[in-house]
């Protein structure tokens, strides 16, 4: 297979990669039959490589079911990858290693469902101090820290520390979740659809607060969302996922203004314009993503691609640089690939 994931190209010339993910794969068995043997495998994350630079916000977009949430769970070590490595600041995060305990504190996550991610039986304070106590902070110090992070997210500790999750609004609960994630002093925060469930005005407030916190605490974000507008607003770089693979990575302006992959184009054109004179002109995406149990041969997007050619069924396009730290996995963009739209080498 030609140019099947090239970490060198993905890594680019960046000097300060906080998180480096290389060829990460995770598939889930579908069990069936009398003895519960694996009948097939869903390839949720199928060979993804990328860097997250210190201090940036990397937006990850894609349709539902493309593996975004599995990727997030892999990154915070909730599930173990089948193959591939995750390195934080150059130290690999391997299951069972003594360093993992220290490393995983540095990556924390905010989940989508603000209600399900708080224990209904615990007060806000107890929810936040749990992780601290588990990591050896004594009770009084943990309490001070909890109050400090609550204050940071704009919730007065006097008001909220002793309350229960059901007494809070969705926005307040999501702030508590952010506070809990911040309590451990992480360097990287994964926001998995963290604002998707909030209504628009609250969403804007939380987004602004996230921006403010990032400045104040020198945080790095991975912002996972299906909402293209929100990703555009908050991200420095964007990674587009399709069926468990990264198909285009680049700076936010490049991705939004000059997308190269036909999938990215389709995704962006599916957005509604605020201007009635700007009608959707590009061919919209049609159909559903193919079954991840048995993805199409060659390029996975070819079944829905407006510019697919026989070549696309034969060879899988690798991620190749397309100038200015922009990389794309599409034969039409790779010179010399043989695609009729590609520049001839």
């Amino acid at each position, binding site marked *: 297979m030609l140019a099947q994931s090239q970490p060198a190209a993905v890594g680019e010339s960046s000097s300060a990669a906080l998180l480096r993910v290389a060829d990460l794969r995770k598939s889930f068995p579908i069990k069936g039959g009398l003895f519960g043997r694996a009948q097939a495998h869903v390839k949720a994350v199928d060979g993804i490589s990328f860097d997250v630079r210190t201090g940036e916000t990397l937006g990850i977009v894609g349709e539902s079911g493309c593996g975004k949430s599995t990727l997030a769970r892999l990154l915070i070590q909730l599930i173990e990858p089948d193959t591939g490595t995750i390195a934080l600041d150059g130290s690999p995060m391997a299951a069972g290693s003594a360093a993992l305990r220290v490393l995983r504190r540095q990556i924390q996550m905010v989940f989508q469902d603000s209600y399900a991610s*708080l224990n209904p039986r615990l007060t806000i304070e107890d929810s936040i101090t749990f992780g601290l106590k588990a990591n050896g902070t004594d009770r009084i110090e943990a309490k001070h820290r909890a109050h400090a992070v609550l204050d940071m997210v704009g919730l007065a500790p006097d008001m909220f520390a002793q309350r229960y999750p059901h007494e809070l609004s969705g926005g307040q609960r999501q702030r508590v979740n952010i506070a809990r994630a911040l309590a451990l002093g992480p360097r990287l925060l994964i926001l998995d659809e963290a604002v998707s469930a909030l209504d628009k005005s609250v969403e804007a407030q939380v987004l602004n607060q996230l921006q403010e916190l990032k400045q104040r605490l020198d945080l790095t974000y991975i912002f996972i969302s299906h909402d293209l507008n929100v990703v555009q607003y908050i991200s420095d770089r964007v990674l587009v996922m399709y069926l468990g693979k990264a198909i285009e990575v680049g700076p936010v302006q490049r991705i939004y203004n000059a997308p190269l992959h036909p999938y990215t184009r389709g995704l962006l054109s599916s957005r509604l314009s605020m201007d009635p004179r700007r009608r959707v002109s590009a061919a919209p995406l049609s159909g559903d993503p193919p079954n991840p149990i048995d993805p199409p041969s060659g390029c996975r997007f070819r079944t829905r691609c407006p510019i697919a050619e026989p070549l696309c069924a034969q060879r899988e396009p690798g991620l190749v640089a397309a100038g200015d730290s922009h990389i794309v996995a599409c034969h039409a963009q790779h010179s010399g690939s043989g695609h009729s739209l590609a520049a001839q080498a």
Partner: protein
Amino acid sequence: MPNLALDDLRAPPTGLRPRSRSFWQTVGRRLARDPVTLTCAAVLLLILLAAIFAPLIAPHDPYRTSMARRLLAVGDHRHWLGTDELGRDLLSRLIYGGRMSLFMGFMPVVLATIIGGTLGVIAGYAGGALNMAIMRLFDIFYAFPSVLLAVAISGVLGAGLVNSLVSLTLVFIPPVARVAESVTTQIRNQDYVEAARATGAASWRIVTGHVLSNVTGPILIYASSLISVSIVIASGLSFLGLGVVPPEPEWGLMLNTLRQAIYIAPLNAILPGVMIFITSMCSNLISDGLRGAMDVKV
């Protein structure tokens, strides 16, 4: 996007804050407003207190037989609830009998809840092979009806208080474990448990800090419904001669020995049965009340 002032989001001053109640406080308040549960609790408490202070309350010696006063009718001026087939005071025996019957109702359930609950939570949280091993082992117990199982185990171990306690506990462990396992499996996949795991906390810490607080409610509801079953099966064991040994007063055993008198003094004969009925009925209604009170979105 304009930066919205964060101060706007801060809630009003502390003085206006409503008092937060924990889940258990809420459940307690709801139970306190439920007349059926309160009545049943009062009746059970009365029976319990009577059993505990039996020597002070009982009008007669429960062991003293009298051939001349056999099967006196209910309402006798000396023996208010009559006498049994050996002339022993029935009221005194019912009061004393409560000791053994209540003990056999509660103790096996308490033990089974602790043991079965622990095993179920472990199986549910660990999942995988350990879950399979524990739960399949318990499935074997499900092949037999609970009464038959209790009779069989008691039969093997022999009659006696400790043996029937052991057999009843063994009978109740599998169903409690199954409830605990299924609730734990649900809780384990909640986001807050995942968030706790992401902090790097040890499993025991997550179980004690996050899982137990959410599984105790459902387990307690189920366990409370077992108390009446336990009383009935324990009485059944005694009735069959596998539980408490005569002349010890125990409701099930009394029911057995008074059985021959059912045509002569039917009222006397059914009195122990009435006590069993009242006790199990009350514990069942309390269980229902508990279920209702805990069915709150907190």
